[in-house]
């Protein structure tokens, strides 16, 4: 395991942290198993980060490597930022799961397999020529071949379960066993199962509970598991915490924003992986004046949201890349109408259908520029599952205050991942209320008082909003260019130029907090020579990698961008203070190109699009090499230099035409 601490009881080893992965068939309940283990650990006070990984098909062919569904957790007694690189413990429910995931298990790691699933046919399906349980190929691991299926069936005997249903409780047996290994109480899972199976025949609940408890007992009584482990609670700051997934945190952030604005929340959405859970979450919250509407397509979803915004709702639409592409014309309309609207893009691998269930952060430039005309809007990105709450709240705040659509970027990794979330005190959340116009603010052509929808606030450039039903403020808005102030149709050349610049200035003028640098060795220019900067979900892996580098006594600086548009005002001056700026991204260098354009620097890219988050050790190896080279007196590293760096990633394509710039 990661690191062992002093060991008072020889039968219980205390660990600083452990990475566990459950892997099985798509139908084996691995997501539930992992989720429950994470919830148990979180309730026990550990810091937890999770990484679910499942196939795009609901039920891929059973027993095949392509159908393997897995759930990785990192449980620690300290603040962690990633779900871990390599599992220390792997639970494989069948040969296919073993085949698909064994390569990730660290040498010497604990391997628990369901020997009951290792028959000739299953081995063949998974592509094994011989049985790995007996052919010696697993000798590098601490192997526990346990007949999980058989023991689960045995545990449920006499409860009236059909054999198939009895066998299906094997995941609970596995959960019980692993819970025992890590000294985790199972009470919350018992309560959870009681609720989950409340409407099923009673023997289903009884069977699952029997298997869960049998798993715990098996660990306790079997000599094979001589040692169990304990991960002490992480020293989190005082407060109330909750195990939180990114997509739920987005839903909660939006509900909180609507509450603080005193407005109903209206969601127009169309189902799309991996954003659908936000629709599910919000659909449940009808008693909080959340109105969710499932439209006929992505365009209608944002159309309804635009209508809702016009009618005075806090309007939201949630989608993923393909849906963003479909919505782009309507986003342009929302920019022209200058209506508040939050557009959530939970990114996935692209282009086209791409990798629907895998993560990527390749929609940054689409968010910034993927519209016709000069169509600026604020773009911000969430950096972790729990942070999705704040990011969603801030997105709504900007949308309301500036009367603009705002894009919030998340991705599949943090959408499905989870971590402890400090529950905010509602009384401490800021007020987001805005005032709707109730009186005319100008004079019409007929000399009578009139409402001028584009007569702006001089500071924020936000326009006044008059919602239908307000007497005397009847007015028309639309996608045609509008005259400054009156909002009437205008084809005047100078007016269009003015309006284009005004819309840009409005977005550029949004006050964004200054970029902060994390570098214990000193402020920019006085500490590390290397700055690693990222955006979105790479925050965790970059942060973990920086810690690994610092543990070696080396200096490294980390900065992370919440706001991608507008960028923080101090960004260029901070970047200029470092010899080398490294930009790890799960795309081919979109932020790198943006920094080159905005800050006139030559960043170095480190990119991958593997559908999975970066591994901290991989990043740490790259960072270490860079830091050492810089300390050795090398000038700022070139793309060629970084290409020489090893590691398992594809290094150094410093993208978007940097070669030409040399």
């Amino acid at each position, binding site marked *: 395991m990661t690191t062992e601490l002093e060991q008072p009881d020889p039968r219980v080893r205390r660990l600083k942290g452990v990475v566990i992965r459950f892997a099985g068939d798509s139908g084996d309940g691995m997501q539930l198993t992992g989720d429950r283990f994470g*919830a148990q650990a*979180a*309730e026990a*006070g550990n810091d937890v980060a999770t990484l679910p990984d499942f196939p795009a098909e609901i039920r891929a062919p059973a027993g095949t490597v392509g159908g393997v569904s897995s759930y990785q957790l990192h449980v620690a007694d300290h603040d962690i930022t990633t779900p871990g690189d390599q599992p220390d413990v792997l639970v494989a429910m069948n040969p296919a799961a073993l085949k698909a995931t064994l390569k990730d298990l660290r040498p010497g790691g604990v391997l628990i397999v369901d020997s009951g699933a290792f028959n000739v046919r299953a081995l063949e399906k998974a592509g094994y020529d011989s049985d790995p349980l007996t052919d010696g190929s697993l000798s590098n691991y601490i192997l526990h071949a346990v007949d999980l299926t058989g023991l689960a069936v045995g545990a449920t005997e006499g409860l009236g379960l059909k054999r198939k249903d009895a066998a299906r409780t094997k995941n609970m047996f596995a959960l019980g066993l692993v819970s025992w290994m890590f000294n985790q109480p199972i009470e919350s899972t018992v309560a959870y199962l009681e609720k989950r199976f409340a409407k099923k025949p009673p023997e289903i609940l009884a069977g699952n509970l029997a298997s869960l408890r049998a798993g715990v007992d098996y660990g306790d009584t079997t000599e094979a598991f001589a040692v169990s482990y304990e991960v002490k*609670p992480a020293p989190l*700051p*005082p*407060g*109330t*915490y*909750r*195990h939180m997934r990114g997509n739920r945190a987005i839903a*909660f952030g939006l*509900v*909180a924003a609507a509450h603080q604005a005193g407005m*109903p929340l*209206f969601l*127009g959405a169309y189902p799309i992986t991996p954003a659908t859970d936000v629709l599910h979450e919000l659909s449940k*919250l*009808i*008693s*909080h*004046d959340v*109105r969710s*509407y499932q*439209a*006929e*397509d992505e*365009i*209608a*979803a944002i*159309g*309804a*949201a*635009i*209508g*809702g*915004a*016009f*009618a*005075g709702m806090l309007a939201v639409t949630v989608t993923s890349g393909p849906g963003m592409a479909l919505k782009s*014309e*309507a986003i342009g*309309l929302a920019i022209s*109408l200058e209506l508040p609207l939050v557009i959530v893009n939970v990114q996935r691998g692209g282009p086209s259908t791409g990798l629907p269930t895998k993560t990527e952060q390749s929609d940054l430039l689409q968010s910034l520029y993927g519209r016709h005309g000069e169509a600026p809007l604020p773009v911000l990105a969430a950096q972790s599952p729990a942070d999705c709450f704040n990011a969603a709240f801030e997105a709504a705040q900007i949308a309301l205050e500036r009367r603009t659509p705002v894009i919030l970027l998340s991705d599949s990794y943090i959408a499905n991942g989870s971590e402890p979330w400090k*529950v905010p005190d*509602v009384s401490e959340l800021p007020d987001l209320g805005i005032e709707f116009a109730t009186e005319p603010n100008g004079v019409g052509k007929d000399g009578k008082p009139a409402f001028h929808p584009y007569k702006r606030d001089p500071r924020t450039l936000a326009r006044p909003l008059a919602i*239908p*039903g*307000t*007497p*005397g*403020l*009847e*007015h*028309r*808005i*639309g*996608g045609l260019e509008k005259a400054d102030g009156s909002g009437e*149709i205008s084809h005047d050349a100078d007016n269009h130029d003015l309006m284009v610049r005004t819309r840009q200035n409005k977005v550029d003028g949004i006050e964004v907090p200054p970029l902060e640098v994390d570098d214990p060795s000193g402020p920019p220019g006085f500490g590390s020579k290397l700055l690693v900067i990222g955006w979105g979900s790479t925050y965790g892996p970059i942060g973990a990698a920086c810690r690994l580098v610092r543990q070696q006594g080396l200096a490294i600086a980390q900065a992370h961008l919440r706001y991608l548009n507008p960028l923080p005002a101090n960004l260029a001056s901070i970047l200029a203070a470092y010899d080398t700026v490294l930009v790890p991204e799960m795309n081919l260098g979109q932020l790198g190109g943006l920094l080159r354009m905005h800050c006139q620097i030559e960043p170095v890219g480190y990119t991958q699009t593997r559908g999975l988050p970066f591994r901290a050790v991989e990043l740490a190896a790259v960072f270490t090499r860079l830091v050492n080279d810089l300390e050795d007196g090398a000038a700022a590293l070139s793309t060629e230099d970084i290409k020489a760096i090893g590691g398992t990633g594809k290094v150094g394509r410093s993208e978007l035409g940097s070669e030409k710039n040399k």
Partner: protein
Amino acid sequence: MTSADAGGKQLTAKDFSAGEARWCPGCGDHAILNNMRNLMPTLGIPRENFVVISGIGCSSRLPYYLDTYGMHSIHGRAPSIATGVSINRPDLSVWVVTGDGDALSIGGNHLIHALRRNVNLKILLFNNQIYGLTKGQFSPATKPGTITPSSPFGSLDHSFNPLALALGAEASFVARTVDTDRKHMMEILAAAAAHNGSALVEIRQNCPTFNHGERAVTADTSVPTPADGPIRLEAGSPILFGADSQWAVLRDAETGDLKLGRSTEKGVVVHNPRSTSPTYAYALARIADTEPELAPIGVYRAVERPSFDNQYQDRLADARAGGRGDLQDLLTGNDSWTVPARS
């Protein structure tokens, strides 16, 4: 009922007038606009509670000329935007202004789904059977074989019958009127306004610039000619037409199909727009559908079906009957834990 301003002054068409319309002289849109300006003050709805939402095309400029709340949106999407307004604000009277290209081509999906859901929208489909604003290409409502700049050898497309389409989507109110008959249009628009749920009104109109109506000339007196039209539908009355009511819509005794014939023949149909099955209205929509001058005008179908808006609002009200949910309770949940302050 009529609309009055805050001071109690009776509103008129002038109060609903915003700016001078910029359509071609002779365009049917002018007549429709005038009729709407005259109708709206008579509906008993405060002016500020009207919302008129349009897509793109000649017809879709209309909201700019009506002094109500309005939005000129993007091509084909008006029903979706109007849905977002209507379901959230049952106090508003939401109208959609669209054309045959906007509603039937690029926006076909939104149209059928708004009708299917029975959203409380009054959808006015201006049908001039041509793309006017882009200068005269064939639309989904254009007759096959029509020569246009994009179909110089005649269009190949089979055309949509907007009413049959709406009935196929189980619209609860379906009607047709024509730009040239002010009185008829006012009646139909008033009936649409009174309907709770989606109302689709096709307004047949002339495009003097790109699709000037040409009447077929025929000397054959054994069948009805366009000059005998249009067929007027009156609920509860036999469907007769022609200068001397010499023609009628008949039901074929053997097949049950509707057909045109002499009013002296057996099987003259008595019009019933309240028939629960859409089959009758569908058959009526297809009768003479290749002869726009002859095709029936009036209310084809007007049935009661719960509107999406009412159900949506009822559900919201039910959910809040026990009081609004507490945000702090939601955020804290029942699976949270507390980390105590260290002493």
